[in-house]
């Protein structure tokens, strides 16, 4: 009780602490956010967003008539969902296997090496990937050893999403492994000892102790990733795509960029961006309540 009383006067200090951050937020996020009105305008740069003509939902109506809209929504969701799933399964498997490894030095080395790519930018990695997957590059070289004729990977719309997902997993799995390893360290070691005394095999221990021990983490991460269903990775695709793979690789973010900045169709681009934000926000809200309800966990 005393404590509660004491902390009462703290609130104004807390507000003071929040102040600099919220000033920053206001200047660089909240003020520019008023640009959302462009989505409802026939935006004329000469008149600015205060005087441009209001056209209601015209931009949205036009957006839905475009074939592109269907394509980019499908591509975005397809790539993002595949990434979410693969970025869950691969690191989980890797973490479980790493956990079984009993040479500790080796374990630490592998752990350190595999998350190296996480720290490299897509600008750099795209440079590397374009080289490796080029017509005369090493991947085609290896394929030709097996008698497979070389192919132009970055011209193949059928392969492009998989290259994107694959390279993303390659870049991120090491880092995601750490999250699962952290969860694994939380399992009570006495459980394993008891199981060993009972004569349980490694596989049985994995199934009966390890997996149940981290299942909540897995569920929680899945719920949290709901907010990313429309984030397929602008940096990565922007640096790797080309018109030949637009049909399978163009995503909302790259489309918005091209439409707004290269084709000068501001209203349309803003409308698409807004739609994406609304959907993402809804999904995050859902995941917030799902996590609270089923995992008793407050995300924020």
């Amino acid at each position, binding site marked *: 009780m005393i404590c509660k009383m004491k902390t009462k006067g703290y609130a104004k200090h807390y507000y003071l602490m929040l102040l600099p951050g919220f000033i920053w937020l206001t200047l660089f996020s909240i003020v520019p956010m008023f640009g959302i009105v462009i989505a409802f305008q026939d935006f*004329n*740069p000469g*008149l600015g967003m205060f005087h441009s003509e209001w056209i209601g939902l015209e931009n949205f109506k036009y957006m839905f*008539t475009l074939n*592109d809209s269907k394509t980019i929504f499908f591509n975005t969701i397809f790539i993002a969902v595949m990434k979410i799933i693969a970025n869950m399964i691969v690191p989980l498997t890797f973490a479980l296997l790493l956990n079984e490894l009993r040479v500790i030095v080796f374990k630490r080395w592998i752990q350190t090496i595999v998350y190296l790519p996480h720290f490299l930018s897509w600008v750099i990695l795209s440079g590397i990937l374009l080289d490796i997957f080029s017509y005369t590059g090493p991947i085609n070289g290896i394929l030709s050893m097996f008698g497979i004729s070389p192919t132009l990977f970055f011209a193949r719309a059928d392969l492009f999403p998989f290259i994107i997902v694959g390279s993303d997993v390659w870049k991120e799995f090491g880092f995601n492994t750490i999250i699962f390893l952290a969860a694994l360290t939380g399992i009570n070691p006495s459980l394993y000892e008891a199981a060993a005394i009972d004569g349980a095999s490694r596989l049985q221990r994995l199934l009966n102790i390890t997996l149940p021990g981290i299942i909540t983490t897995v569920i929680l991460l899945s719920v949290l990733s709901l907010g990313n269903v429309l984030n397929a990775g602008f940096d990565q695709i922007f640096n790797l795509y*080309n018109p*030949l793979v637009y049909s399978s690789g163009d995503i909302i973010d790259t489309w918005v960029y091209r439409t707004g900045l290269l084709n*000068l169709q501001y209203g349309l681009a803003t409308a698409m961006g807004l739609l994406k934000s609304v959907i993402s926000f809804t999904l995050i809200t859902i995941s917030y309540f799902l996590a609270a309800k089923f995992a008793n966990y407050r995300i924020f």
Partner: protein
Amino acid sequence: MSKSKKCIQILLAGMLIVLTACSNSSSSKESPNSSTKEAETPAVQKEADPFGKSEEPITIKIGKEIDASDKSLPAGDSPESNQYTRYIKDKLNIDTKIIWQAAAGKDYEQKINLSIASDDLPDALVVNETQFRQMVKSGQLEDLTDVYNEYASPTIKGIIETTKGLALKSVTIDEKMYALPNVTPESDMVHYMWIRKDWLDKLGLQTPKTIDELEKVAKAFVEQDPDGNGKADTVGITGPQLGGNINADFINPNSNNYGFDPIFASFHSYPGYWLKDSNGKTTYGSIQPETKQALSTLRDFYTKGLIDREMSIRKDAQELIKNGTSGIYFGVWWSGGYGPLGDAIQNNPKANWQAYAVPLDINGEFTPHMGNPSNQYLVVRKGYEHPEAAIQMQNLLFRDESKFDVNVAISNYPLRLVFASMDVMDVTYKMMKEVLAGTKKPEDLNLPGYNLLKTDAENIKKVKLEPYDNYDIQYWNPNADIGVWKRMYSTLVGISPLQQPYKKTYSVTYSQTKTMERRWAALDKLEKETFLKIIMGAEPIDSFDQFVLDWKKQGGDQIIAEVDEVAKQ
């Protein structure tokens, strides 16, 4: 304890950073204001003189494309201060200030678009057609009608008149002139075949004239090891690079090097062009059956491996030409010497690239599409006090082009527009022949509007060896002066194919209509994607028919009707 002390220090450091941030921002805010003050001083009333020097200094703020690799500026010079800008200051009392610069190409376009969209324009700028129309629509541009009439020099006006009104038409909207258009020589509009003649000779082949012959030659280039290194590493035909276009269109009709325009044209297919059909009605070239036919041929070539497999993925189309693995490409006159050939002959001095006005159509005629003389527009921000300054700069730099040190790249011109009489290369070609034949002397060639002619005449014999009428590479001496060689090789080899008569096809319009402003980006994307996929075998040839339906449905029909209206006017 020590840990927490550190934290306080970091906190303090953070606060300091925030404080300096604030002070920084205010100081940099002031600087643009101070420079506008100069410009705001009222200009002294004066007679309109194209070359008149202002008594008060005038400041013109510009956005500029720059060339990251340019090392031609002497030490201490910059894009903002160099022989050109100092000359302008000296003769006109105009200070050039670059308020932003970006690498030529996409980055420059992006910067302009950002300027337009945020209504934050420099005083003057060189823009493309789409940007120009957007700026007019947004009311961001100064009406230059009077300024042009009063201040443009007679030479500039003369050159603009050589386009017979085309150039002025492209910048005149509602009877107001909103930009100074450039004028591209006609030779920049015609695409034709460049081929390794030494390979033809080695394999005992004739120069291909028809599509069938082209196929045979390309096949031989791929299969018969023309470079004689014992490896099957040669490519028949070079294609466009990543982001390049397989064909020119009405918005960008000129200089589509490494595209396939001549192949389309030999089928009388003009994708991207607005055409008149036999009934006098407007149609669109990309949806015609001829285009399907041309695409199917290109697809066939690609499947057979005659076209570079990495076309449209490769970052640099010139790569294969330079390293001697490609034997054929399509381009305009300057894609020769000015293009990859300088490097190609450094790598292999025997690489004998020659140009021919082929392939021919079914009647044996060369039938290329033609472009629009104007594709760059010098615009002035609405409300800029000295719109005449931008025009005067053009007058001056064009008149005195030959006075500058040629070693400094001309890309350092502030606000550079390509200005050349429509026939400039044709005249240059003819005059060079006369100079070589001894019937004209350099001093005879001081023609207004053809500034480089005299210098060319003085230089040509440095690089061209006898016999003068044979342009094969062994009769040149590139090492004497590679810069001169590039220009003269492009001129003699590149312009000679255009000396025979040929059948020109123009687009009904080279400007965008109202519906296009909204719909064109999507339609254009649909078209380019479909064509590329058809050629590269990612989609069946019959997807062309679906494309035509989609194109019409998604606004194409409406646009055709609009263009038809334009054509009637």
